[in-house]
């Protein structure tokens, strides 16, 4: 199972709180992501449709497609 990096350094939006990665501190977001799937698309900040499964999750942005772990 390969998990995509929670929020790649270049991503404009935080996938946990949905605000700009360039503004504010997202350390708590990154910590929370250890026990949570992403909720926002890190490319367009849309809320994603997220399905958690016993051994993984999938998250779908209507514009940018699905990621999963």
């Amino acid at each position, binding site marked *: 199972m390969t998990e995509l990096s929670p929020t790649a350094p270049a991503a404009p939006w935080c996938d946990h709180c949905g605000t700009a990665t360039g503004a504010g501190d997202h350390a708590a977001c990154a910590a929370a992501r250890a026990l949570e799937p992403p909720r926002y698309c890190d490319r367009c900040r849309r809320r*994603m*449709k*997220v399905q*958690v499964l*016993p*051994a993984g*999750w999938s998250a779908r942005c209507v514009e940018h497609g699905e990621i999963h772990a």
Partner: protein
Amino acid sequence: MPEILDRARTQVLENGVGLDQAGVLAVLNLPDEDLPAALQLAHEVRMRWCGPEVEVEGIVSLKTGGCPEDCHFCSQSGLFTSPVRSVWLDIPNLVAAAKQTAATGATEFCIVAAVRGPDARLMKQLREGVAAIQAEVDIQVAASLGMLTQEQVDELVEMGVHRYNHNLETCRSYFPNVVTTHSWEERWETLRMVRESGMEVCCGGILGLGETVEQRAEFAAQLAELDPHEVPLNFLNPRPGTPLGDRPVVEGKDALRAIAAFRLAMPRTILRYAGGRELTLGDLGTRDGLLGGINAVIVGNYLTTLGRPATDDLKLLDDLKMPVKALSATL
């Protein structure tokens, strides 16, 4: 040794009679230095009345988000500005989730939907899902679909759902502070119908909703009166956007006190570690709880949040020499 633990040793350990509300409150109020003794006694009670086996369960959300109810702890209510969007799980992925769960050695697979109660569409999806799981996976299916009508209870029995989860969440006196769209009594009525149907009753709740220690004791006493087959114990994981999103998490020692107290109130129940343990207790806490009255775990991920890897819990059970309850032992 505090008087309450002496009394519990005779009453609960030897005679199998759970502590009443006042007794539970005394345990919840024990000072830190007495906590190890309380956990030790709760562990002995669990071993004496339940045995060393641990029941392992996996859960999955069949219908996530968009719930019309206002349970103040829940990220799936459509009434709060939570980032959780509405989504349905299809049957092939439901069966895959059951397979993932069975692969851990779990005997229980609970299908959960965020609804006030099931509608015809959800019952149809569940019927197809349960049949598909039963055809392909060796695991017992439980369900958690909110409040039921008698007809729906009968339908679940006929599908072969063997256990139904419906949490009271908190004590009767505090419930109106947590949920306003339905009552504690409505939940109790569903539990009564489930009990009478012959399905196993699974009913627990969440600690850390803002209830007092007295109300925690009240809750344990009310659960003991219900006498469920299983009690899942959650600790609040404050969710962004919910009315309880800013509440502090339960202190680790308070969580452990509660585990011991709930075990001493209900010596024979399956007392399950459910959500929030990772946050409240960390890795060490899982071990402390399993040595303090807990005899069941949810492994893997939860409904909208992630758990620690199932392999970590299974390794811990192996280290503790606690066998995973086998399917044959539950039938």
